[in-house]
Structures are given as C-alpha cells and as structure tokens.
C-alpha cells in the first residue's frame, strides 16, 4: 500500500517538478505592421536557441502610433517595436519604458531603412532628386504626416535633402511648402498610399525602402529610386518596465542583434544595424545620407514641424486650401 501511495505521490508531483524545470514563459510583442513576417521567422529562430527554449509569444501588429497608444492605455506588453522613436518616448513619459532604454551601443535601434521615391515603370519623368519633384506637373503622394507617424520620415527627408543641397533652414521650409503644392493625395497610412499609387494616382510616392522591397517580394510591381540625399530611418525596440519576464525579453532583444537575426531582417528588406550582416544584400549607400540628428533630433522636430497648432506642417497644410 505504502509503495503504491508513494508512487502515486511521485506521479502527481512529477508534472509540477517538470514544469518548474521548463521555462513556461509567454512574451507579448506589440509591434508595427511591416515586420510581421520578419518577426515570425525571428521568433522561430529565437526558440531554437538555448535562451529562447520554451518561450512562447503573443503577437500584436498594427499602425505604430495606434500600437503605442494602446500600450499607453493599458495593453500589456513585454516588448515594444515601433517604426519611429517618438512612439517609444511617449511610453517613457508614462513610465512604461525605462529612461535608459536606448543607452546601449545600438541606441535602442534594431533595424534601419531609407526614404525612397516609388516611381512609375521606367521612371518616365526622371525623378531622382528632391528638386525633380518640383518639376511642373509632377504629382506626389505621401501619407498624411498627421495621421501616419511614419510619414514624418518623409517630411524630414525632404527637409534634410534641401539642407544638404545648400539651403538655409528657412529656404528648406520654403521647399517643403513648394513640395506640398505637388502633393495630390495624403492617405491615412503608408499601405493605403501604395494602393493609391499602384492604382494610377501620382508620379512619385514617398515611401520607405523596406516597405518597397517587401511589396516587391509580395508580387507588387514596384520600382523605386533612392535620392542621393535621404534620411536614415531607424526603428526602435525596447523591453517595457512593466514586463514580468524582463530576462527573457532582454535575451530576445540580444538575439535580434545577432548576425543570424539581422540577416533575417535583411532578407525582409531592412538595412541591418549590424553592418556585417548586410554583406551579400543590395543596400546601396547614399553619399548624402543623414540621420534625424542632422535635422535637430526627434524632440525638436516634433515640436517645430508636427505640433498640430504651431508646427511648420500644420501651417503648410493649413494654407494649402481654402
């Protein structure tokens, strides 16, 4: 009798012992929509490593700004990956992400890209530089920078491009004004912008290289040119301060910066932050590439250009009609 009850006891305890031994962790990843395919592959890759063994993932993908607001309003997340830094900064201000999230050697970034012009087959209007967009009759499409946070990269690329061409800041703002007179449509998101362009509207669509490559991979007939002067897009990632699995989440972030993971990003159209991983991929360097710092950094730029009341773009939009 005693042997049976002992055996029973062990049989009952065994599962709990085993559970203690395995890592029953579930990480929630809240990200913007473009890297969904990439993260699918990356999560599998991570789970094959020792650090990722037994770690499962809950994933949420949507527009960067909306995802950021969701987390700010209480959506539980362990890892947040957005398309531009301000979407993480707003979480820092709400104490949901630690203030030192970007104090590592990658400055908190996990992927890069550049702003490009998507053009018609054969580029009939020969649009190669920012000045070309001002040629008479050229119609430009860009997502609305007020409804698409990511579209702010486009505006800063245009502004910085003008600075690189030797203009003063005032003249560069004047350039933006002129450019906006050529903008015929401002869809709410980048994805919708591409739809509008592919359906025959406009001569140039301001987009990001990784989205253009991704669209090509998915069978859309997309052709793009990268202007000499363009902005380096950097996409941030962070572990939340409310995460209950900070160790595993940080291991995941560490994994994302390994050469193997960065190669997966590169296959999905992103420029890696680990430069070695770019080997073998066609990511042409641009002679007049600049970063957001060149045009003032995000906090200055958000206030100066995108404040809904007093920002440069608010004034430009505000005077474009009537």
């Amino acid at each position: 009798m005693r042997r049976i009850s002992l055996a029973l006891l062990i049989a009952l305890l065994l599962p709990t012992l085993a559970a203690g031994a395995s890592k029953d962790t579930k990480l929630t990843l809240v990200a913007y929509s473009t890297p969904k395919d990439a993260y699918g592959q990356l999560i599998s890759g991570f789970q094959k490593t020792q650090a990722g063994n037994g770690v499962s993932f809950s994933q949420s993908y949507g527009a960067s700004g909306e995802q950021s607001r969701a987390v700010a309003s209480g959506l539980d997340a362990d890892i947040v990956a957005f398309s531009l830094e301000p979407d993480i900064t707003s979480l820092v201000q709400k104490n949901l992400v630690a203030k030192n999230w970007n104090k590592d050697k990658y400055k908190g970034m996990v992927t890069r890209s550049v702003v490009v012009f998507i053009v018609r087959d054969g580029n009939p209007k020969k649009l190669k530089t920012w000045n070309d967009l001002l040629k008479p009759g050229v119609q430009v499409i860009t997502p609305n920078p007020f409804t698409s946070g990511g579209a702010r990269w486009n505006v800063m690329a245009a502004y910085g491009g003008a600075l690189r061409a030797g203009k003063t800041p005032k003249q560069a703002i004047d350039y933006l004004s002129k450019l906006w007179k050529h903008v015929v449509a401002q869809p709410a998101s980048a994805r919708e912008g591409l739809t509008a362009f592919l359906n025959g509207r406009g001569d140039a669509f301001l987009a990001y290289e990784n989205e253009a490559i991704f669209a090509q991979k998915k069978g859309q007939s997309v052709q793009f040119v990268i202007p000499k002067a363009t902005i380096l897009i950097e996409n941030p990632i962070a572990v939340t301060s409310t995460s209950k699995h900070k160790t595993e989440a940080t291991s995941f972030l560490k994994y994302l910066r390994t050469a193997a993971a960065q190669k997966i990003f590169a296959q999905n159209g992103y420029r890696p932050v680990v430069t070695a991983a770019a080997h073998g991929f066609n990511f042409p360097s641009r002679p007049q590439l600049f970063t957001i710092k060149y045009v003032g950094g995000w906090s200055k730029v958000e206030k100066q250009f995108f404040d809904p009341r007093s920002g440069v773009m608010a004034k430009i939009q505000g005077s474009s009609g009537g």
Partner: protein
Amino acid sequence: MAANAGALPAAPEARRSLAPRLAVGLSTLYLSVIVLLPLAALSWKAHGWQAVTNPEAVAALKLSLGISLVVALVNAFAGTAIAWTLVRDRFVGQGLVNALVDLPFALPTIVAGLTLLILFGPKSPVNVDVSLTRWGLLLALLFVTLPFVVRTVQPVLFELDREMEEAAASLGAGRVATFLRIILPSILPAILSGVALAFARAIGEFGAVVLISGNRPFKTEVASLYIFGRIESGDSGGAAAASVVILGISFGVLIAIGALRRWVTRHDR
C-alpha cells in the same frame, strides 16, 4: 394617442402601468451605460478648442456636415424608390437584389474603399474617375449608407393597407396623386427615420472614404480624418473637442429630423 384610461378595468391597468415604466427604465439604463457613459468620458477630456477653430478644422467640419446632408437627401429619394421596387414590383432576381442590400454594412470599410477606388478611380474599367474629388467622397458615402432608408421603408410599405389606394383608384385618382396623398404620408416617418440614420453614418464615416477621396485638406478631408490626425499627433484633448462639436451638431440635426417626423404625423393621431 387617444385617452383610454377611463374605459379599462382596474387590474389590467395596474399591470399595464408597471410594464411601460419598466420598459422605459430598462432602455434608458442600457442607453446610458452603453452610449452616454463613454461619451461623458470623451467630453470630460475635451480641451484645446483651437483644434476646432483653426481653418483646416472648420473646413473639414463644414465639408462633413454639408456632404452628409446631401447624402441624406439622395438616400431619401433613392432609398424610397428602391424599397418600392423591392416591395411592389416583381422581377427576376428580386430576391437576390434584396439579399445584397445589407452588404455595404458587412464589408469592412477598408475593402469598401479599395473596391470603390479600383472601380471608380484612375484605373476604372468603365472609365469613370472620381478619385480625389468630392464626387468620389459622395459615392463612397452613398455606398455605406445605402441600406438605411431602403430597410426602414420596406417594412412599412409592406404593412400598408391597400384599401385606401384601391378606393382612391376607383374614385379616379391618378397614380401620382395616390402616391402623394395616400402612400407618402404613411411612409414619410419611415423615410425620415432612415434619413436620420444615413446622416449620422455619413458624418462619422472614416475608412471607406479615404482611398477614393485622397484625404486632401480643405478639399476632401472629412472631419473624422481630421480628428484622427489630432489623435495621432498626441492632441487627444483637441480630438475630443472636435468630436464633441460634431456630436453636438449631429444631435441638433437628429432632433430636427425627429421634430419634422412628429410634425408630419401630427395630423394622423
């Protein structure tokens, strides 16, 4: 409503006065929890009225209001005509057409927008390009509001007592006169109900209109897109303020339509 209290025996009367109070009470509670509470939370956060008074906002609000009234008007006529065709007429495929009428609701707005852009945009197979114009906006709004007037008029048309029409016909009244004097007064309340719905939906519409209208400030940017822009730019107080304004104006229009409906039915009871 004719007075009836004096004629009834006591017991059913007592039972009857509890049930209506319960009905009113329960409905009001439901409405308050589901609708009023979130709206109160919204109004609480509304501040920054600059979001409402700047030129771009005013243009968007004016556009939304104006085009929604046009949409409501077009639907009043088109919806009634379609309801008539579906109830009083007989033709092959009528059942199928009837089944399709609700589909503009069931289609996600992104697909509605996508489809309209492809059919009536630059690559239109019938060479009709209304993209980037207010006509495109109108088209998209007519699509999403299609079922309203049709579906509110249909049941009433169906219930209509034909005796009066037949009497009028036998007295020599023409079809137009019969329609105007006998049928229209009976279905006008239903038309107005549907019109209220169509107006409300058109003013709040977001997804279906963006692609075909191009969302151009001052030209085709509707209020809901402008408000979304405010939210995305971190000015949710201003967004709430603009929403409250639009809500207030819509509320006014809906009350006016309700009053119109009461005036129209005043003579009947």
